[in-house]
Structure formats: C-alpha cells, structure tokens
C-alpha cells in the first residue's frame, strides 16, 4: 500500500508536488518524509544514481524513478509488489509530464504544482488493493521488467555523503599527523646522532687532555 508520494526536481531538490493526506495513521511519517527529502538532496548533489531504484528503510521501501530531471518517489510496505509500485510511478510520471512538462524547469517556488495532488490521490486509490482484477493483471504482465532494479539500504544511500565527509576529515588528519611525524623523526635523528658520536668524542677529549697534561708536566 502506498504510504507517501513525492515529486521533486532533481537539479536542486525542490519539491514540486506531494500526495496530500498521505500516511495519516502513521506516527513516524514525518521521519520518513525527512528521509525522502534528504534523499532528494543527495540526488541533487549530482551523484549519478540509477534512474530506478528501491531503497529499504525500516519496514518500508522507497521506490523512485528519475525521468526528465524529475524524481517520482513513493513509499510502500515491504510486502507491496515492486511491480505495482513502479507502475504507479510510471502513471504519475506520464500524467505529470503531460500536464506540467514544460514548466518544470522554470518553477521557482516550492510545491509549484501542488494541484497535481488531486491526481495523486485518484491514482493512489487505484493501487491501494493489490488484489483487484486490474492490479492482478498488471502483476502478471511480463512486459514490464523490474527484476534488475537495484535494491539498497537507506543507510547506504544517505551514508555516501557522510562517508565522503569522513574521508576528507581522515585525510586532513593524516596530513597534520604526518607533519608531526616528520618533526618527531627529525628530532629523533638528531638524538641518534648524538648518541652515536658522544662516546668517541669523550674518548678523544680524554686523550687530548692526557696529551696536554703530559706536555705540561714535561
């Protein structure tokens, strides 16, 4: 069952439309909405992602497709057939492109196409029950292939940016540490030198002293 539907522009993560009263019974829907928004942000940073993907999060799945620089995302139960979810997104995409296709790039304010939510509502209702004749037919339709769509975990996806941060942090730490190491090494080198030549110097000094004393006495 579809819990959440969001449409956003990939170039800057600007939300364009959203299903209206999605997830009314869930307490944690805000949390997942935030995750979805982070996902959009990640996408807008230009990391090349597959145009179709399923992302696992808690008991749910995010499914999204990216087409024409617009990302259509929905959140479903784990048990909801992937095939139907992507069919749903395809339906949304076709209608959205038909209605607003030429204004997508110029939209300046968030939720510029919020009027689209009525269509989202209507379409969603069609996909609510997986066992209706219509949906069963779609499920059995082999034309649409979803098997190769990658499934990843949300931590993985959202973690990418985080890891980059970590790497850069590590590298800066490495630089400073190595500088310290170099200083320390130079210091050690000097100490080793002293340790190596100190006895010889002492012996020589004593010998010289002896020579000097002998010369004085005699």
């Amino acid at each position, binding site marked *: 069952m579809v819990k959440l539907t969001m449409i956003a522009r990939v170039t*800057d993560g*600007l*939300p364009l*439309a*959203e299903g*209206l*009263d999605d997830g*009314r019974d869930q*307490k*944690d829907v*805000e*949390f997942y909405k*935030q*995750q979805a928004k*982070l996902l959009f*942000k990640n996408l807008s940073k230009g990391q090349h992602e597959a145009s179709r993907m399923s992302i696992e999060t808690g008991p749910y799945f995010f499914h999204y497709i990216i087409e024409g620089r617009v990302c259509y995302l929905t959140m479903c139960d784990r048990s909801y057939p992937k095939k139907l979810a992507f069919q749903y997104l395809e339906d949304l995409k076709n209608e959205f492109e038909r209605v607003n296709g030429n204004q997508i790039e110029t939209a*300046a*304010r*968030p*939720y510029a196409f*919020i*009027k689209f*939510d*009525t269509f989202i*509502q*209507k379409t969603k209702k069609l996909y609510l029950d997986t066992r209706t004749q219509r949906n069963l037919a779609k499920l059995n339709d082999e034309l649409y292939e979803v098997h190769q769509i990658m499934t990843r975990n*949300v*931590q993985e996806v*959202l973690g990418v*940016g*985080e890891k*980059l*941060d970590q790497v*850069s942090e590590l590298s800066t730490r490495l630089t400073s540490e190595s500088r310290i190491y170099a200083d320390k090494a130079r210091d050690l080198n000097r100490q080793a030198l002293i340790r190596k030549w100190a006895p010889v110097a002492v012996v020589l000094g004593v010998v010289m002293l002896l020579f000097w004393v002998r010369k004085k006495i005699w």
Partner: protein
Amino acid sequence: MQPMGNDKPANVPGRPVLPSPAAPQLSTPFISPGPVVGLGASGVPQTTAPFLSSRPITGTQMSDYRSPSPPPPIRYNGPSSPPPPTSYPGQDATIYQQTHATRFPLPAQPGTPLRGPPSVGLPVTPPIGSLRPQPQIPSVPMGPAPQIGTHLSSRSYMPPPLSESSFSAPRPPPQPSLHGYSNVLPRGNMPPSPAETQFLAPRPVSQPPSQQAFPSFHVPPVHASPYHVHQGGVVPPPPPPPLGGPLGYNSREQMQYPNTGPPMGGSLQGLIEEFQSLSVGSAPGSLDHGVDAKSLPRPLNGDEEAIKIQETYPLNCHQRFFRLTTHAIPTSQSLLARWHLPLGAVVHPLAEVPDGEEVPIVNFGPAGVIRCRRCRTYVNPYVTFTDAGRKWRCNLCSLLNDVPGEYYCALDASGRRCDFDQRPELSKGSVEFVAPTEYMVRPPMPPVYFFLIDVSISAVQCGLLEIVAKTIKSCLDELPGFPRTQIGFLTFDSALHFHNLKSSLTQPQMLVVADLDDIFLPLPDDLLVNLSDSRHVVDALLDSLPSMFQDNVNVESALGPALKAAFMIMSRLGGKLLVFQSTLPSLGVGRLRLRGDDLRIYGTDKEHTLRMPEDPFYKQMAAEFTKNQIAVDVYAFSEKYTDIASLGSLAKYTGGQVYHHPSFQATTHQEKLRYELARDLTRETAWEAVMRIRCGKGVRFTTYHGHFMLRSTDLLALPAVDCDKAFAMQLSLEDTLMTTQTVYFQVALLYTSSSGERRIRVHTAAAPVVADLGEMYRQADTGAIISLLSRLAIEKTQSHKLDDARQLMQLKLVKSLKEYRNLYVMQHRLGGRLIFPESLKFLPLYVLSLCKSVALRGGYADASLDERCAAGYNMMILPIRRMLRLLYPGLYKIDENLIKGPEDFEKSLKQLALSAQSLDPRALYIYDDGFSFIIWLGRMLSPDLVNGILGFDLSGFPDLSKLALLEHDNEYSRKLMRIIKRLREKDPSCFQLCRVVRQGEQPREGSLLLSNLIEDQTAGTSSYVDWILQIYRQSQSS
C-alpha cells in the same frame, strides 16, 4: 552532510561574497505552522491588566480623582512623574520652565540626526563563530523522528537581552530647569500671530464665529478678560508656524537641534501648540450649563487616516495595515507613565487594498529570504547597506549581516543600493515574499470547508436549513482553490448524520451515528471529499437536505459530539469549520444550561461569569482545533438564549468569527445570512497562518487582543485569517531610557494562500522616539486608541462588572486629558475650558459611545446577554474604520434625495449628529452602523413617500418588524434602494440588514434607534454635553 558553509569568505575584505549553496539553509524558518508544534501551556491568552486602579472608583465625583498620583503601570517602580499641579498657581514662569525643558533633549541623549542609523550600542563585528550555518539537518538521519520545524522555531527568535536593572533603576535625571531663562520671558510673550487662530480659546469673543472650527463658544468673562490685558503688551510676533501636517515635523526638528536656533525660538515653539479647547465654564447655580451642544466635535466626515505620517515616513507600510496609538514612542518609563492612554498598535495584516495598490510579491529564489541572523527581521526599506554593499545592518537589532552573493549590488554615492527602485522590498513598506521550503512543515494545504449544520426543529422551522443549503450551493463555483478545494457536511440533532460523498456515488449516503459518548467515524474516507470530483454528489446533497429534515421534530442538539466528529474528519488537513447552531446544545459533552436570565447576578462580583464560557470543553476543543489548523466560524440563530459566550470561544481561539442572527426568520433575514455566508466562503482567506510582530530594541509587545491562539509569547497562531480581521496589541518599554532615535516595527504573517502558495506578508513601519509628552499627544491616533481601548474594555467585562469596564475607560480618558491640561493650561490661562489635542478631539465622544455600545451598555435589561457577547466578539476583530463606524454610526436625512433626487448621492448625503434633535418628524432618515440600516419614518412624512417605499399604507399600523424592504415599482423605492446599495458598497464586509421603524412605534423605536443615538441622554447614561462636563470636572480636579 554539509561540506559547505564553513569556508564562506564572509570576513575577507575586498572580495564579494561568493554564492554559496549553503545560503538557503542559513535562513531557518521562524515558525513552524504544522501540527507538530505543541501548544503547551501557552494556550491561555494573557489577559491584560494595565493601569488598573485597585480602588473601585464609584460615581463621577471629583473627589475620586484626587489621588496624589495616577496608579503607575505595572513594572514601573519609580514615582510617577507628573508634579502636583498645586504648586503652580499664579506662577506662569514655572510652566514655561517645564514646557521649555521638556522640549529640549535630555543631556543623556545623543544628538544624532533623526533618521540616521542609531550609533549607540552597536556590536561592530559579529562573532565569527556564528557565521557557520546552523546545522539544521542532523547529519545522522536515524534516531528519533526529527521534528525540524519545532526544533528550529525554538531557536529562531532571540529576544533582546532584558536588563533587569532597568525596572528598579532610579527615575531618569530630573529635567533641567532653566531659571534665568524663564525669568526673562514675560508672561505676555504670547504672540497674537495669525497662528493664534489655532488656539480658538483666546479670542472667541471678538471673532466672528464662522471663522472658527467650533464656532460658538461660550466664554465666561472671568477667564477672557485677563487674557485681553496681556494681549496689549506683546513682543513682535514670530513668523507663523506652518499649520497642519508639517507642524509636528518641524517641532521635532527644533527639538533635534536646539542649539542652532535662537533660544527664543525654542520657547515660542513650545507655545505654539496645536490644541483645541471647549468652554465648559459656567456660573455656579445657573441653569445654563455653558456648553453649546452644536459646537462639540463630531466625526461627521468619517475616519481621516493620518496621512501626515505617510508623508513623513514614506517608506512605512500603509496606515491601513498598521497603526500605532501614537506615532511617537516615549523615551522613558516615566514619560510613558504620563501617557495614560494605551500605547500599542492595531494590525490589519490582510486589509483590502484598492486596485493598483496591491502588495508586491518578491521571490528570492534559491538565495532564500534575506533576514537578520540574530533577530530574524526580514529585509526592509530601513536596512542600511555598508561595506560597498557586501553587508547590511539590521534596523531592529543593528547587527551587521552579510549580503548573499545572489543579492549583492553595488552602492551609489549616497550609500543606497543602485537597484533600490527595482526591488520592492527595499522601496515599499509592504511586500510579500514567496516562502521557500524551509517555511513549510508540510505541503501547502488545500482550502477545506466543513459544514456542521443543526437540523433540529428550530432550524428547520425558521427556514435556516433551506437558506444555508441554497447559499452553499450557489457558492460552490466560487470557493477559492479550485481544483483542490475539499468539502464535507455533517448534520446533527440528537444524533450525528454523516454524509458519504464518494465521487462514484450518484446520490449521497447518510450514515447515522446515535452513540454520542464514544464518537467514531462510520467511514474512513469520503466524508471530506474533493469538490471538483464529487461535485454532483454535493449538489444532490444540498438539494435534498431541506426536504430530508422537513418533518424533523427533534428538539435536541448534540453540538459537542458533532464538534468532536468534525474534528476527527478534519484533523489531518485543517481548514474552516462552519457551525450553524439554532438552539442551546443539549446533549453529550459540551451541553450548556440556561444561565443568562438571572437578573440578580448583575451588579455582583459574579456578573462576569455570564460572559465567560461556562464549560471548559469549548476552550479545549478550540485548542485542539488550532493545533490542527482548523478555524471555526459560529453562526448562531436562536431567539432564545444559546450561550454565545461559550460557543464564541470556539471562534475566539481559532481565529474565527461569530455571526449572530437573533430571532432568525427566513423571510426577513435571509438576504443578510446569504450575503455573509457567501462572503465568508468566497473571500480570500489565508490558511494555516502564523503572525509575529517584531520591534526594535527597548520596546516589546506584551499583550495581544483579537481572535487567535498565542503559541509562544509572541507568536499568534491563526488557522485562517482574512481581510475582515484586525488585531490589537500593547507595547511596553523595556529600558528606562531609550537610546535610539527611531523604533521600527515589523509585522510578518506567514500563510498559505488558497491557491496553494506559501507566502510571507511583511509590513514595516518606523516611529520616532520622543522625549516630549506634547509630541505624543500631537501624534496620537484616535482610531487606533479607541480600537485598542474597546478591546481592553471587552476583556475587562470578562473578568469584571460592566460598570468597572466603563469606569476604566472613563478613567483613562480623564487622566489623559488631565495630563494634557497640566501641560498647557496654566500658561494659557484656560481655566474654565476643557482642552484637548487636535488629534484626540473625538476621543471623548468615542469613549462615551463605547460605554453605550451594546457590549458595554447598561445592565441586565439593556441588551440581552447573547447580543452583548456577540457584539463583544465582533468588536474584538473589527478593523479601525469599521470600529469607528460602529461607535459613531452615520445618520442621514434622505427624504429630499428621494423627492428631488439628485443623482449624486455621495455629496448630498450629509451625516448628522446622532441625537434625537436631528430627527425631524417630517423627514425620513437612514441610520448606518456598519452592521444594519435603520430607516426611520417621521410621523409627518408624506404618505405618498411612505406608500412608495413600503408598498402599503401605514395607516393600519402594520407590524413593521416582519417587513423586508423590497424594491417597488416607483421612483421613491428605486432611489431608496440605490442609496442603500451605495451605502452598502462602502463596507462590503458585512450585509447591513434594513429595518424600518416609524416614529413613536414603541418599543421598537427605542431599542432599534433611540438607544443608539449616543449623544442623547438615555436611561442611566449621560448625554454628550453632560459627558463633556463630567470629563471636564474630573480633569479639573487634581
């Protein structure tokens, strides 16, 4: 998650700020209007208790006002500053000292130019650490659900540090007295210059009355003669000061540079005050009271908005959006303590604007809205750009902010931005910003209308149900927000009837739930549906509703459970809930009892409980509604008691409105209901709104009055707000001595428009800080003062007796006039005169009519409790213009227009004084208070005219109360209708129901018209003349 932002080159001089992707995130939303925000303990609005004297003041005798000092306002510990006037008599020089001294700035004040940036106490460089963008989004996305909106809002407003010491500080340094100077000035210095005509007082005897604003003053010779003596030996007159508008400004200039002009100029300037006076003196014991009723000031030309201010401060937002009670903020607590009227503002954020003056819309795009980092002020015309345009200084908190790269523009030679003209936010006081995503906790909601309709026998019988159904049906096409608009219906009597409006149905299904204790929804969906999808079902329902309940004999009304059910349906979206109630709620939770008719409770300490909600249920429901962005409009119809006090609290805390139609009858009232409901449904409404008013350092808004819920100390939650609602608020001073020259105010309303756009409407205004009480009086705004006063009075009636509220109003008026008198009276020898500033000349009249208004008048018998409460709720939201119209209604004589019929009604309609003396039995009058019209037929009016208008003969003494005025086929009737139409167009926010009353028709004439002629003496109230005398006597006593 955010690798950017840290390296912002903000502090590198000589380099423009680079566009940074972090910019949009710098602007944290100042509010989070979503349901996630807890209401907390702030649900209870603070009621105000300013200036309350603890002593009950009874009667109107002078002795009551002999208290040594006026009761100081709360939080002020110093002694009250007005020196006892008893030390003055006979010494005019002393007065010169005083006025003179107050006109010079105190030594402590910096002498910076008036409009320049305040130079005191600026943090020069912002702490570098704070340049980092605040990590809005937690970098680890797991964990407890991050309610980002709430999280941010708690941080977004940082009140300026409040110095505790300021309250216990000793009073400001005493004003320097200039002894030698005052001795030099002879008393006869008073110049008989042309400017003297302003004084009205000095020469009324010798002047022909027609040249004066208030022609026939009765001047007792006792007072006039000494003055003439002095006029003999005067020094040459100074050049006359400019009159009217520029005067205020000039005097301020004088104040600003006291040393540049000759010392004489300063003192003369002090004398040339613009004030007015009324002679009220009379020989003791004489019957003539000494006041000519005709000469009293009356606002017969309507409300003149102070255009002066607009000229002085062209960058301010228009007066219709924001009006201060006085356009001059006092420098110190002690000065404020001498200003006995409320200091505050009336805000009307969505006031209707004439065509061509629409508020411009600004979209900052990805840069985000430009706001001050510290106080979250929006960029406005008063900010100053420095550092070659790379920085801007906030005008409220004077913090230096960086200009984002996208917004950068070079400065011209005078330090203004070159694109100043192209950017409305820098050249206009009112703008609307398109809100970026950070200002939304959820996508913009669609307009939602849910109707809760009483279908019990009384509603059916009076024809209410049918009219409501028809009106809603006729408005369906005009509901805003197509195609997203949602609609739903719930009818109730002793059971709840849900209506399934699923779009695939052909006929609506009714589902009855009789269990009132445990409310449940019979359907999960389709009780609230998209209008455009289910249009045919909605039409079918509205067509069948009246017939469906035609034979209903159920007398019960389960309003409480119905509200709960409506809440369950609407809670996930929010929207507008319209409640149509025709009886007292009698079943389930929230049932109310009959409590209004207890005569004995009036006059006791428990009197106010009648005007308070009885059952906390309604307030709790209102809190729940606000949390879920639901606004409630209450339509009440019963002729019997329906406890508007309780029902109205639903509207009060949700930003709604109370429509009271007592003894509703379809035949006479249908037009009014139809118009008002249609306006309610189709006017432009702002949804899920929040409003905050920021002001500069040193002042603070303390109490707010109107229909809203206070979400935090200064954030007003408004589930829905529209052009018919205004809010009032009071100011207090934080520091003892204000250091700035100008105080700025900024009203910000964040809302969702019906078309689904999130917008921020920002109004900015500036007001000067003055050290002179006279200047405060000069800049006073009667309209704003009376609006604020009436709201205070209404709130007072909810905790005290009616009489206490009236006393409070009178006390404030008297105190302010007395203070003004102390300023001027001695030097001008104006004993025997009531003097008042030009700006407040109507205030006594308005206060009188406030005391006589339905909400405050009389006692038990003077107005029914429901009408009183409904009037109270209405007055809480009225904008200034309508408030003034209500307080001083128009009375026009129109029989000549009907007979002769000049086409130009506007000019020929002359407003008359509201007194029975204006009524001529041979004429026909129309009375307009903004809520209803009353047509008064004189006894000796020609029968032709009457027949023409009414369509029948009056000789049979028919019952005029059931009459609906219709257009008949004759010239008189057509003309009358045209006049009425024209008058209605003046005020589109309400439909003025026309009622006809004939002279001598009791008791209707008395209740409809005579009791509203506020200048007359009615039972237990004083007439205008008496009132002025009373005010005069009280302001005389010291």
